[in-house]
């Protein structure tokens, strides 16, 4: 992978996300435990748009929680950018991770205005006692909102809870993209949206990712979105990355991918897979 990144850059910059030999099991009643990750290895470089697919119960949500430091694997290492998140069953640091979920108001303060939410997302001086309102910031806010093309910019003084679901989702994504986090996790971002809003919201996330240096990990059951938009597709299966597909080498069809997801072992390794 990462053919366009020069080796010099690679040496200077750590990967946006790196998981090494991650083992995770949910504790269960009695002796047994429910294994979800069995030595998972993956690395995602900066600036990539990567899709993650897998059937229900394959551990997609668990993997996202492990990346965010909400769950700690029993074995293995998790790194986000330069931050060591967890190592050998110990949480080391909470990482900087942008998250966009199917809840449209994820990361938004509902009774605060759009502008105030913008300030919360963009003001990185944590202990600032400076006045939070300025015409310069308001202009920056309106410029950002205009990118969504959803009439958000005229609502910058409106409380977030009075926006439509699609507008909230777009705002949530725009603000998540303002963070300097190495990786942005999108978990079924369009589940709650109509097909038109879903298109627009995804386009927005992709174009914003192209203009920042972090990468994007997109989890979705809408296989078409994954196939069309991701430069790399990870198939989660049997507690590991069962298939690692470079879509630049060959773009799989929706059917191909569904086949790979359904199948356990007996598919031809012709999709540029570097599994395990």
């Amino acid at each position, binding site marked *: 992978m990462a053919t366009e990144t020069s080796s010099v850059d690679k040496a200077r910059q750590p990967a946006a996300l790196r998981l090494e030999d991650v083992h995770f099991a949910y504790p269960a009643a009695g002796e047994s435990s429910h294994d979800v990750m069995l030595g998972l290895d993956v690395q995602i470089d900066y600036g990539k748009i990567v899709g993650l697919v897998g059937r229900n119960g394959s551990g997609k949500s668990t993997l996202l929680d492990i990346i965010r430091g909400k769950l700690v694997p029993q074995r293995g290492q998790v790194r986000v950018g330069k931050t060591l998140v967890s190592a050998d069953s110990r949480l080391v640091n909470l990482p900087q991770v942008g*998250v966009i979920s199917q809840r449209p108001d*994820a*990361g938004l*303060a509902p009774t605060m205005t759009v502008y105030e939410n913008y300030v*919360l*997302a963009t003001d990185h001086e944590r202990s*600032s006692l400076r006045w*939070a309102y300025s015409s310069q910031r308001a202009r920056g806010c309106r410029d950002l909102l205009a990118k969504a093309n959803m009439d958000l910019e005229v609502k910058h003084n409106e409380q977030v809870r*009075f926006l439509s679901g699609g507008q909230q989702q777009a705002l949530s994504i725009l603000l998540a993209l303002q963070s300097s986090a190495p990786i942005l996790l999108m978990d079924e971002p369009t589940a709650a949206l109509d097909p038109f809003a879903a298109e627009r919201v995804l386009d927005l996330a992709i174009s914003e990712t192209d203009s920042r240096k972090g990468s994007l990990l997109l989890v979705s059951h809408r296989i078409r979105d994954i196939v069309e938009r991701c430069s790399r597709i990870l198939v989660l299966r049997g507690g590991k990355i069962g298939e690692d597909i470079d879509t630049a080498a060959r773009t799989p069809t929706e059917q191909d991918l569904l086949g790979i997801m359904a199948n356990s072992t007996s598919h031809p390794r012709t999709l540029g897979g570097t599994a395990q």
Partner: protein
Amino acid sequence: MTLDSLSFTVQMGLLYAIPAMAVLLAFRVVGFPDLTPDGSFTLGAGVSSILLLQAWPELAATCVAVGAGTLAGIVTALLHTRLRISKLLSGILVMTMLYSVSLRAMGTSNLSLRGVSTLLGSLSSRASGPLPIATITLITGIVFLGLWTFLKTGVGLRLRAVGDSESVTEHRGLRREPFYILGLGATNGLAALGGALVAQYQGFVDVSMGTGLVIICLAAVIIGETIVRPDRVGLLMAAPVLGMIIYQGVIAVALRMNLAAADLKVATAALALLFVAIDRLRVQKGAAGRQIGNRNI
């Protein structure tokens, strides 16, 4: 109502508006239903009175009282964040302990401040003539402006966000603990300031003067919110001030109409209920509020 009693009502309203703004800060802004102010109000009254009786300078005595209240608030916040005791119980525990602390500090269940020079007294006499209302307005106004300004700074926005939704703190990587410490410290510092000023105004401290304070303040917050329907921070802060003046007026009238002092708490609760009912009926009619603040509490 005579002019005298009207002026008394407004003065009491403006004095109690300080703890009312504090309660609003905890309940509506920080999203922490804190019952500590019952205790920190008395603590502020007790501490400032003891120091005044020992001839401390008025301002210093009042400041120490505010500091004591702030500490009490921080303890409540830490009980919740460190020991994971529920918000309600943390407040109740500290409030209960503060009753004994105040009683111990005062050494007796009530103290008279007759003949002692107080902050309100000295400021008022300097303002040529007995004009406590001007002094009280000034102090309450400073607290109001201070809170209003603070809530519009970067830290103030984050404090509001912490009270607004779990999701925003998680996504913006905000730890809740420092904001609970900040918010409850300020809440109880202000409650203590209110207690100190009320004690100085009425000329005595009673160890049970804070009992039921949070309920009175909540009643004022609800009354104020029903009237002003705050959709901006300025209006949100104004609600408890207006509400407290109205509350004090209603209580004064009720007492004049021979309401027994024993029935005062029922009257307070009934008044709060009345305004909640007005608010809810209005919402049902479709005039849904565009109010800000944490309405879960």
